[in-house]
């Protein structure tokens, strides 16, 4: 392509881009954070957006027995749903990915339990109950001490053993 054609093409692209933007109907309705608080449930791995509240393993054991054991097994050994406690030291293609040997971030536990569990009634647990369940699962998997409290400050600091074992397949796409 000649420079002149290139310049024309570039100008056209700019013009179209500006026109597209100007012609957008811009119908998004502004909303304030307090009005989407009920939906604002993503917990990022640095701990951002973790809510107030706290929980310990002893309380979590009780919630687990009532809400989780039916599918995940009374000792978290797995059943109809995934194993949550214990398992092999290393995952393979034969299976065996566990919280202790695989999950890179402990914050994922809070995020996933709160958004998706218990299966028949997601979003029915209080934040304290979720913190307690997370403390229970981390403690049973020997990733924190039995009496350690999980809250917005302590949870992101939990070091998961497999964190640095991941290889990003196509780094240029991120």
């Amino acid at each position, binding site marked *: 392509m000649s420079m002149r054609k290139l310049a024309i093409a570039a100008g056209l692209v700019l013009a179209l881009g500006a026109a*597209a*933007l100007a*012609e*957008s*109907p*811009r*119908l*998004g*309705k*502004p*909303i*304030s*954070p307090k009005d*989407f608080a009920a*939906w*604002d*449930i*993503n*917990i*990022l*791995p*640095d701990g951002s957006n973790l809510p107030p509240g706290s929980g310990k393993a002893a309380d979590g054991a009780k919630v687990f027995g009532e809400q989780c054991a039916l*599918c995940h097994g009374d000792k978290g050994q797995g059943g*109809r*749903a995934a194993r949550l406690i214990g398992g092999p030291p*290393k*995952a*393979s*293609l*034969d*299976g065996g*990915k566990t919280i202790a040997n*695989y*999950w*890179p*971030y402990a*914050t*994922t536990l809070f*995020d*996933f339990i709160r*958004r*998706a569990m218990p*299966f*028949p009634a*997601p*979003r029915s647990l209080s934040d304290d109950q979720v913190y307690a369940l997370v403390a229970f699962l981390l403690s049973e998997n020997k990733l924190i001490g039995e009496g350690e409290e999980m809250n917005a400050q302590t949870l992101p600091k939990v070091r998961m053993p*497999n964190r640095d*074992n*991941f*290889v*990003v*397949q*196509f780094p240029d*796409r*991120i």
Partner: protein
Amino acid sequence: MSKSKNPIEQVAGNGLLHRRALLGRGIMVAGAMGAGSAGLLTGAAAEPLADAPWSLMPGDVTPPYGRPSSFESKVVRTVDNPKNEPSGSRARTPHHLLRGAITPNGLHFTIMHAGIPDIDPAEHKLLIHGMVKQPLVFDLDSLSRYRMVTRTGFLECGGNSAPLFSNDPIQADVQALHGLASCAQWTGVPLATLLDEAGVDPKAKWIVAEGADAPHLSRSVPLAKVWDDAMVAMYQNGERIQPGQGYPMRLYLPGYEGNMNVKFLRRVQVTDQPGMTFFESKIYSDPLPNGKDTQFYFVQEVKSFISSPSPGVGLKEPGVYEISGIAYSGNGRIDKVMVSADGGKSWGEAALDEPRLPKAFTRFSMAWRWDGGPAVLQSRAWDEGGNSQPSREQFVARRGQTTKPPSVLGFPGHHFNAVTSWGVNAKGEVKHVYA
């Protein structure tokens, strides 16, 4: 018709014929049957013709929404959780019963993690927030006033073809092995348009997308993909997307693993880091033979498989057949497909249906004269980026395999894109083999 007297050139071993055999008239193929042939595919004369009952009386009422013929009742998806037990459910596309490159909406594969929600479109909202100047809410009405784009593209579950991670070939048909991939025409609003309206912070790098179904399924997507070709899709093959595909709107990320194409899209948070959600932390990540684990694989790499012949779609008698299959790549257009009938010893180039669209199914075909002996059929695809589909041996060296066969419904690994081999025996039966 002088050409019809010339044998069609064999382009590769065990009876693979030149593309001309498919492009030309039937008589050319018949001519290829060689010396002594009278130029007919079959020797037996046809029966005399008479009017059938349906030609002698008026037919049925025309329904408001058309359905396939009652004789096509077996052309359905296989569902692995028909009682909607409290777990996931998957429905697989019957590739061996379809032709062309577009999957009908009712046969498009789907995976649900906690059932299909019954969403009232008038109540559905899409929130965009996070690292933006102004959080915004859209609904179906407002989105319908935006300029929509349409593109044809495939969707493939990151776990499609997972049974091929098995150390021994699992005997199952193409639907069971490769049915978690489909192709449709998607129409919607570019997500970039909506993010521009909200005003994205230049420091942002990711979005975390979330669905309105019970699991509130969430996945992280690099912003680069959003600016490239991400779409808030509302139509599939011209009609509103079906509930099993995310009604009334889903994220569509051409070429990226199915799970990231969040259904029932209700929220997009712009962030400076990935959410490390459950599905990207545990599920769509695999142990590697070197002890490491994959992360953020995203792309469904170049792949192909033969849908006919295939297990359950055998050969009745020696003669000329069309080998037909599907090729696709999350990196762009299909550039070339090679087919082998002798387990990879020799290869011939297949004909490709047009149009060859980027990140979409491309149907390939090859004429094959089966002599009644054993054969191993394979296809291997290349995309326009120069990426080639690996042999299973090459793939396993890089990604590993199981030590014992898993369930055909299991997902030992993800992003399997190696060559599939179909073994044909002297009876014309087709089995899944490793070759």
